């Protein structure tokens, strides 16, 4: 910290030195008082002076005079003397004679009048200095009012010199003064341009200009080669003070990338001197050109925030990993250089920016660091499991469990005999996932209220572990449907209200359902039979068999058992009539599929298939051709393990797109990809997907190719092309040929522990070092447990309570309450404090 301060002092004095090179004169009163003759005769060529003429008695001008007097010292730094000219009573010359001339101040260079200022323009020191310098630096600081003016200046400067463009809300302000003072120093180096027009600021690419605050941009026109393009700009992030401007200009003046061929520990640049970090890009001969471009790219991003140096590894013998490609040197003394392996330039930039942020915080609030530390370790106690947290937040709400019978060891078996079917939810009252399912289960109960033949019940395995073990329930939650105490089916679908409800409903009908007459079979295909299911939209699967096909029929029946609850399956035994077969042009054994909402009946011939094959086939057939992908149905398509071609749409997709996509999807029977669409209105999480792919929300509809299972590359269908089968196919060809650049690639990252655990082993060792624990093992082969927050410190405080623990004990009575009764006693002692609060 103190080193930093020194550096500030250093650079400030440096500035003053450049700015004035005028030694202090030590005179208490810098305002000269002269007679007109003395004044005019004493004016030296090229030397500026600010004069104010007065007859001795002019009380109204008194405050104004004071301000001028105060600014004498500041102006003196710029070689401007301030003079009060005392007009003799009889004098009626140009400056002394006229009454209103006395209300003004005059700026002379030599004996030439440069400008006269009305007293109200000189209301304080800032305004005096700003206005005087503004007038004097007429050539160095261009004042512009229109964008055209600005562009003209900019164009004229291209390839020649850089421009400093400043916006101040008004002249005569402190910011104005700072800009003018900087211009006094740097005016010959850079072209200064000043404006008070906020519109100009808008046009410089600032999206949300805050017109109330001044801004300064450094325009790199000297490097500009393309006359059509505006110069690259670097805005100054800090407030407009002379010091900050100076700092900014110095940084802008520094070379973009410094080439380094020495030990990085010894390298020092302007950036380090100004308290900014220095980033080294480690380069090798082979990659020099690319590295240089990288370095420049990074340097542009970090301009004003950090310096960038290109370090040639071939010239310096670095004792670091060959993989390291970036190094970071911080201005703090004694902090070693960090060598890193980074993957993209963004990481470099965040590295620097986060550092700055951290530092800012540290500088802003130099409060107890212990507090910070504590906060950090306490993250571990903050729940980061969305399900557990959601359930605990919901725990005070009483669940409407009236519809759901709670079973006990005594009532379990008798209850199963009561209804034709009993659904039992096995859960544990402390387990979050099963409690989440219990909530959905209450909604199921609500849906099924009044449904006959189904009893909803539950068993809390925390109360009745015996039944759960006996019923072979090894994990929570489990739902089983018992048929009159005979057979039971375990539910293996999504834990959602709709899915559960439909499962329970479908389970009521035997699977496959034996259809006796041709009328029933037809009604079944129309979705009208059995009547219990007529209100459910579903795809009906009808197996048609003849006398000779008992093998296929058995397989079909077995498949029905497996798919029970998920699919409605019917079975029609034709005998010799073959009415159905004829109607749908199949020969038994065959499957007829009637999709809901569509009148078509598809037919599939059955060959010698096992039950498992048949299950697979039926599942596959039930998948849509160009389905809308949703949260519950995605897993079915994921299982195909194919790339996805997804049309993202905000609401329903247009007819044209729908038609084209359907054509595409139907085009080839065994598609190599899943063509589907996603309705962001129905599946809002799709937005999260898009944001992950493109960082910002792209315009919709949008066709995306995602290779989920191989490589994870994401490609975006060019938005300028219309979504037609032909266009898509040729785009896909290009993808295959590797001609397209992916928009992003899905992270391959493993799912690591979100936070470290308490390292009790280390705490124990720190607290009781004589424990012969370390004998057999080496330390450090413990699993990666603690970050640097040193749990050791923690135990030390437990050993001999330091202020921290005392503060904890006394200061936060609430925290002591957890867990145990002896703590309860401690709490009572704190009771008073509590009531005071």
């Amino acid at each position: 910290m103190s080193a930093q301060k020194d550096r500030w002092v250093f650079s400030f004095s440096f500035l003053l030195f450049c700015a004035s090179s005028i030694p202090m004169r030590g005179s208490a009163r810098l305002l000269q008082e002269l007679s007109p003759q003395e004044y005019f005769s004493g004016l030296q060529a090229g030397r500026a002076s600010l004069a104010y003429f007065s007859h001795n008695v002019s009380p109204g001008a008194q405050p104004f005079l004071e301000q001028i007097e105060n600014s004498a010292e500041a102006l003196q730094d710029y070689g401007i003397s301030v003079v009060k000219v005392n007009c003799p009573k009889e004098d009626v010359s140009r400056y002394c004679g006229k009454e209103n001339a006395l209300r003004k101040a005059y700026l002379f260079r030599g004996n030439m009048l440069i400008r006269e200022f009305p007293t109200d323009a000189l209301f304080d020191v800032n305004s005096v200095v700003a206005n005087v310098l503004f007038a004097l630096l007429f050539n160095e600081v261009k004042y512009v009012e229109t964008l055209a003016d600005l562009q003209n200046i900019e164009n004229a400067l291209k390839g020649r010199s850089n421009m400093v463009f400043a916006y101040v809300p008004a002249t005569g302000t402190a910011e104005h003064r700072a800009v003018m003072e900087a211009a006094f120093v740097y005016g010959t180096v850079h072209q200064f341009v000043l404006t008070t027009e906020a519109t100009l600021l808008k046009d410089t690419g600032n999206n949300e200009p805050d017109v109330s605050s001044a801004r300064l941009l450094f325009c790199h026109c000297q490097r500009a080669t393309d006359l059509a393009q505006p110069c690259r700009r670097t805005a100054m992030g800090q407030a407009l003070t002379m010091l900050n401007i100076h700092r900014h200009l110095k940084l802008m003046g520094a070379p973009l990338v410094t080439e380094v061929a020495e030990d990085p520990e010894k390298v020092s640049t302007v950036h380090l001197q100004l308290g900014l970090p220095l980033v080294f890009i480690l380069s090798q001969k082979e990659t020099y050109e690319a590295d240089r471009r990288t370095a420049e790219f990074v340097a542009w991003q970090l301009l004003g925030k950090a310096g960038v140096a290109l370090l040639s590894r071939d010239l310096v013998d670095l004792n670091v990993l060959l993989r390291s490609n970036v190094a970071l040197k911080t201005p703090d003394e004694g902090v070693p250089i960090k060598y890193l392996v980074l993957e993209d330039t963004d990481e470099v930039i965040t590295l620097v920016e986060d550092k700055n942020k951290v530092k800012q915080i540290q500088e802003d609030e130099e409060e107890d660091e212990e507090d910070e530390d504590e906060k950090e370790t306490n993250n571990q106690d903050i729940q980061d499991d969305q399900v557990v947290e959601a359930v605990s937040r919901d725990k005070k709400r009483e669940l409407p469990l009236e519809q759901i019978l709670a079973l006990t060891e005594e009532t379990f078996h008798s209850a199963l005999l009561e209804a034709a079917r009993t659904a039992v939810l096995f859960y544990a009252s402390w387990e979050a996932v099963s409690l989440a399912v219990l909530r959905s289960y209450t909604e199921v109960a609500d849906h099924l209220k009044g449904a006959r033949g189904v009893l909803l019940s539950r068993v809390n395995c925390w109360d009745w572990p015996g039944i759960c073990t006996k019923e072979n329930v090894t994990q929570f939650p489990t739902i089983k449907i018992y048929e009159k105490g005979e057979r039971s089916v375990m539910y293996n679908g999504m834990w959602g209200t709709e899915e559960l409800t439909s499962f329970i409903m479908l389970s009521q009908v035997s699977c496959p359902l034996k259809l006796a007459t041709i009328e029933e079979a037809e009604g079944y295909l129309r979705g009208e039979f059995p009547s219990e299911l007529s209100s459910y939209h579903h795809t009906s699967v009808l197996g048609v068999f003849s006398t000779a096909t008992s093998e296929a029929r058995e397989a079909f029946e077995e498949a029905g058992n497996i798919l029970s609850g998920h699919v409605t399956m019917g079975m029609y035994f034709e005998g010799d009539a073959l009415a159905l077969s004829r109607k749908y042009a199949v020969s038994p054994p065959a499957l007829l599929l009637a999709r809901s909402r569509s009148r078509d009946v598809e037919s599939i011939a059955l060959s010698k298939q096992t039950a498992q094959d048949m299950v697979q086939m039926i599942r596959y057939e039930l998948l849509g051709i160009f389905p809308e992908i949703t949260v519950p149905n995605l897993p079915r398509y994921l299982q195909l393990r194919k790339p996805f071609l997804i049309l993202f749409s905000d609401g329903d997709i247009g007819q044209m797109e729908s038609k084209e996509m359907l054509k595409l999807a139907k085009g080839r029977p065994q598609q190599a990809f899943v063509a589907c669409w996603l309705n962001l209105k129905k599946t809002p999480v799709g937005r999260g997907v898009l944001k992950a792919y493109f960082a910002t929300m792209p315009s919709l509809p949008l066709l995306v190719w995602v290779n989920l299972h191989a490589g994870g590359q994401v490609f975006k269908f060019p938005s300028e092309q219309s979504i037609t089968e032909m266009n898509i196919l040729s785009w896909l060809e290009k993808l295959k040929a590797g001609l397209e650049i992916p928009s992003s690639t899905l992270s391959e990252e493993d799912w690591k522990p979100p936070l470290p655990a308490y390292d009790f082993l280390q705490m124990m060792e720190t607290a009781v070092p004589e424990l012969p624990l370390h004998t057999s093992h080496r330390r450090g082969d413990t699993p990666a447990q603690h970050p640097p927050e040193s749990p050791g410190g923690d135990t030390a405080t437990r050993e001999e309570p330091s202020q921290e623990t005392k503060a904890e004990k006394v200061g936060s009575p609430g925290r002591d309450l957890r867990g145990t009764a002896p703590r309860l006693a401690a709490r009572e002692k704190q009771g008073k404090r509590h009531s005071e609060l």
Partner: protein
Amino acid sequence: LGLALYASSLCVVSGTTFLYHDYCVIGAGPSGLQAAYFLQRAGRDYVVFERSHAPGSFFALYPRHRKLISINKRYTGKSNGEFNLRHDWNSLLSHDRRLLFRRYSRDFFPDADTMVRYLEDFASLLKLQVQYNTAIVHVTLERDRQAWNGHYFLLTDQDRQNYKCSSLLVATGTWVPNVVNFPGSEYVEGYETVSTNPEDFAGQTVLILGRGNSAFETAENILGVTNFIHMVSRSRVRLSWATHYVGDLRAINNGLLDTYQLKSLDGLLEGDLEDLAIIKDKKGKLHITLRFYLENRNTSAGIDSITLPQDELDNFATRAPYDRIIRCLGWKFDFSIYNRSLRMMPGKGNKKKYPQIKPSYESRGTRGLFVLGTASHSVDFRKSAGGFIHGFRYTTRAVHRLLENRHHGVPWPSTVYPITQLTNSIIKRVNEASGLYQMFSVLADIILLRDAATAFEYLEEYPVGILAELETQTGRKATNGLFVVIMEYGRNFSGADKDVFYYNRAVGEAQHAWQSNFLHPVIYYYKRLPTEREMKLRPPDWPLPRPDAIHHIVEDFLTDWTAPNAHILPLRRFLENCLSTDLRNFFAESCFLFAFTRQKLPPFCWQGYVRMQGLVGSEGLRRHAVEAGLLEDYTLTDFLGDRLPDSHEGSQDQLLRDHAIPVRPLQHLVNAKDE
């Protein structure tokens, strides 16, 4: 047919007739019956020998004053049968719910007769094979390379009937009264025969030798009618509430401590009984003197010539003569019936009343001989509950499981779960398991990790002392690391001289859980099975060698370790860090997002959602998750247009950050920008 079977199990070896059984159990007390129960359930060929006509003959006589000090807690506020066994110290393990002790007695400290009745029922209701009135008087070995253990056990009963067994389970308890021999010890009455009628002690002055529960129980009984009672023993009194060892003096018996400390003439004295001598004077009063004086006296002189301590030290504590002296010194194992070849050796030091056994309960001297019940207490003497019904009912089961694996190829029972159930299965067990709770620091649950940490195998109540032999003893493989779930008291918390009620003794914060004092679950993590050497070199009061990581679940006043933040969360973090994975639960919506934005999914998603068992969650729950900042609500982002995702203030969500890294290898990016 029965006859034929009987005949087939008869075998004739060198002219002697042997009745053969795979397993012979000696003793039909609680542990013998418990062993019989497991053998019967497994369908094994076994027999139990009982010298008495009924089971539990020890309880028919002891405790003399008939009050059991094992608690019979009939109400716990919970219906969980497994949990309730934590507070039922008398029942044996069985599937039969009729055989719960609370159905036998309403007393918190039940009568010993009830225990006898209970054991009778246990044997008869479960139809256990007990051969009564058979006292095994001799046990020897017969070498045979065909035998399971390289030898058979040959047993002989009081009628010279011989029995031959492949495996011998010794469940005889400790029933031989400890006797101290010193001059005058013939004047001492034994606990086993002393009158239990207080009237017999009216107006008498009594000296009790010993300081265990039987001594105090005897004192308690006569406290109200004696002049005063003195108690002598070598060791200081050990109070069970200070040592949390149930074999030490229980509060229910400590009335004499009260009267001693409240100056009511009764008292405790420390001294080695071996140094004592007792002299009876002419009036029949008994005087205490020291063996030292007796040895130096002139043998010809009469009783009056014997020096009494008070002759030299006139304030000698036990100078007053006693009317009666009672010996209450406990019991020891009956070593007498074993042939030398079995090498049944007494333990060392304070364990000399028990035979030497390994932590697997197998005799150190003879393979295939297992010691069960009270006699097996040397494994955890003065530590855990292995010497008592509520402890050895579990160790007996453990021995049975070891035998099933060793002799019948039945591996230790286990359940395989997906890794997502890891936290749950531990929480479930530490909250309800009674074996872990009663046999703390002795029996432990073992979690064997399967390859790539996608699944694990759960083994219950394995004797932790033979952890190194786990693979051979259980028939399970431990190649991918393991967790050991065990319960422990704080290491420095309790002991004979400790103040266990000191202020601030309880730890409430999860981050200080390792300093917990009361019984609490501890989980050890090993990347590989510890070796026998590491087991031997473990720190003195550690049940296990140094793990690769350890976790303590903070002690809980209600022994209810289900608090989501204080108990489950730190446990999950520990498990996650050991396995280097993310064990959080996710709603289906999050899994959907991950499925599209990451190449890998967290275990909960790929074991659930991807297999079409996603947790959809109710609307209300999802809203809570959104409020907690753990789930992003994308319906709200409509009006935000295309602002950067993290301009979304506050709900900074670690879950949903960096799903995808934009493809920007350094060079590629630069090229694109430059052009």
